[in-house]
């Protein structure tokens, strides 16, 4: 199908993965590599920004499931942001909002991390 690309931006100790294009079985390995790299660097506070994402297939959803356990065991999380309605509906149908924190904006997700770590340090 169409192109898919990712870019990673560091915001403090939070890593933001920006997705764009079509995330399906063929393009999923790109995102998988992003997650593996971040985990290798011990970066467990991850925000995934869906702003530019046009479509996600079931195989694309599977990527998040593959890493969440490991990341949460390391006191990290994957927070999802900026989903368009279509993408959100796919997540919603599968019950992902019950498993992942989904925010309207990237900033909200980053703030959430900072708040919780702030609380933690106190």
């Amino acid at each position, binding site marked *: 199908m169409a192109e898919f690309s990712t870019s990673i931006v560091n915001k403090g100790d939070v890593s933001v993965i920006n997705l764009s294009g079509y995330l399906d079985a063929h393009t999923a390995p790109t995102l998988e590599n992003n997650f593996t790299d971040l985990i290798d660097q011990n970066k467990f506070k991850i925000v995934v920004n869906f702003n530019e994402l046009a479509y996600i297939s079931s195989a694309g959803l599977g990527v998040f499931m593959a890493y969440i356990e490991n990341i949460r065991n390391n006191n990290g999380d994957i927070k999802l942001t900026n989903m368009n309605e279509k993408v959100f509906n796919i997540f919603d149908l599968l*019950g992902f909002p019950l498993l992942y924190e989904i925010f309207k904006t990237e900033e909200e997700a980053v703030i959430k991390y900072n708040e919780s770590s702030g609380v933690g340090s106190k």
Partner: protein
Amino acid sequence: MVGFFEQRKISPLSLIMNIGILSAFIFFLIFFYSSIISLLFENVNDLSNQGMFSTIFTFVYFLLIIGFATYVLVALKQLFFLGQSSSKHIYFNTMIVFFLLASLSVRFINTDELSFISTTFFIVATLLMLINSLRISWIAFLTKKEKITLLFLSVVITVLFIVNANNTGNDNSIFLSFSKSFNVFVSLILIYGAIYFSVLFFTTLFHIPTAEAFDRKAQEVSSLQYFSKLITQVLDFDELTETVTDITTKVSNADASWIIWKENDDFVPIANKNIGFVDSDLINKFILQKVSWDGLSETTFLKLTEFDELAKVSKLYKALAVSPLKAHGKVKGLLVAVRKNEERFNQEDKNAIATFSDYASVAIENSGLLEESIEKERLEKELDVAREIQKKILPEKNPVYDGLEISSVFIPAFEVGGDFYDFFEISKSKLGFVIADVSGKGISAAFIMAEVKGIFESLSKIIESPKEILIKANDILLHTLDKKTFVSAVYGVIDVERGQMKISRAGHCPVLLLRNDIAQSVKPSGIGLGISEVDHFKVHLEEATIDLEENDTIVLYTDGITEAKNENLEDFGEKYFTEILLENRNNIVDEISMKVIQEVTMFSHNHSQYDDITLVIFKWKPRQSEEEGRDRQKISAEGGSAYG
């Protein structure tokens, strides 16, 4: 001796060299014979000893001459049969017969009147020698160098033979006294040798001017053999490229060869022949400075002397030829050949390299295509298996229940999308059903589908509540599926006696209920199977109960319908889907599903079907007579199979 020569492949040149050495030896032997004899006879005054000495010495002398003559005859025979068909035996044998006749006739015919007989035999034998000497076909296959060597050898040997023949013929005192026949026989062999080698001299002389051209032709013929070798090696890319560079060095007389190959935007030397990676990599830079990758259309020569960093290359290569390897008009690689000596590549070399690189391009392209088609075939086989599994898993026909119309349509995608539905006839009044979608595609999805079918089939027999069944199913799948894989499903039970339906949804598309011109989305909460652990799953799972009214239509589907795409990559969408359902809600279920499929097909006719499409429709018709119901079911089964 004959046996020894026949055992191995004869090299005409070494044979001729042997003859040359032996004839030189015999020449000196004959030359010094008389002087040695006279020297010995002068010193030895004892006459009684002189006889014995002379006899022994002459005997040894004759023995050597016989040995020489025999060897020459055998060697000439070898040369004669070299490159000749065996049918020429008759010529040679006839000649030998006349040799013998000429020799023996001398012995037995003593009168002068009859001496013409032996003379005739001698002349016929000589004529046969001439005829037999004319067919020297093996010269053609020698290289130019060998031909020049042969030219000199043949002159020397011819002279030696003439001298030897003259000496043995005239030295009548010893040979004639020993045996007249023997003398004639040896003379004949020596004459044959003289004739053969003089003919050989002239033949070689005439061959010299065309020798180089012939060499090249011979090379071309052998390159043709190499080309055919290429065809058999297309199965292995590495082996193929190795052969290509190997043959390139041969056809163009180059010292080294390699291919510049593009790997991830990087130009690397591959299949290096007689050159190291570092050297070829250095020279690559020079080549790519001089010629543009895509612009090179024909074989081009470059002077390596212009290369600044030539000193870094371990061997002093001087000349370079580079030829494009093209596939579909695009340059896939560059074939490089280099020479160490001053001699530059000429037009002939250019043609050879150009022709060869064309062949190599085709072979390399075929190799790629073959690999692709093997891979494609493998995938298609795999998908065939997946589709076969899917076909066997899905129910063959819809169950028959009083007051319930059932229609089911399943259209597989090329890549097998993992859709699955099934019915479970729990009791006469209770029908269980499931619709599910396994994440992922292909054979792995098909296997999970089989597993899911087994789970629901067994659970439906022991548990009635849809919610409980999904909880159990999640528990099982959580442990068997890998982390990335999940299954979305709707499980439900229709109680035809009570007119009630219970459903639970695990991450699947909602169930649509068409009632009184309105489509309701029934979407009880629930997470997909195999995603979250037992307690979490349980907490969020709901069960919906619907008390059925007459003409209630229940639609189960997979996202293959709502996510079907048109050429603009727009979705078919839930809204359009419900519109079509509502428009057709008063039709029988098979007509409704047929209409939906028609619309989906029309909508996405310019876009390949990416996911499986599954549609199951129930219609509640409680007041129908039993017979009428059965008729409709029959139509339904036929309609269903038409799409499946």
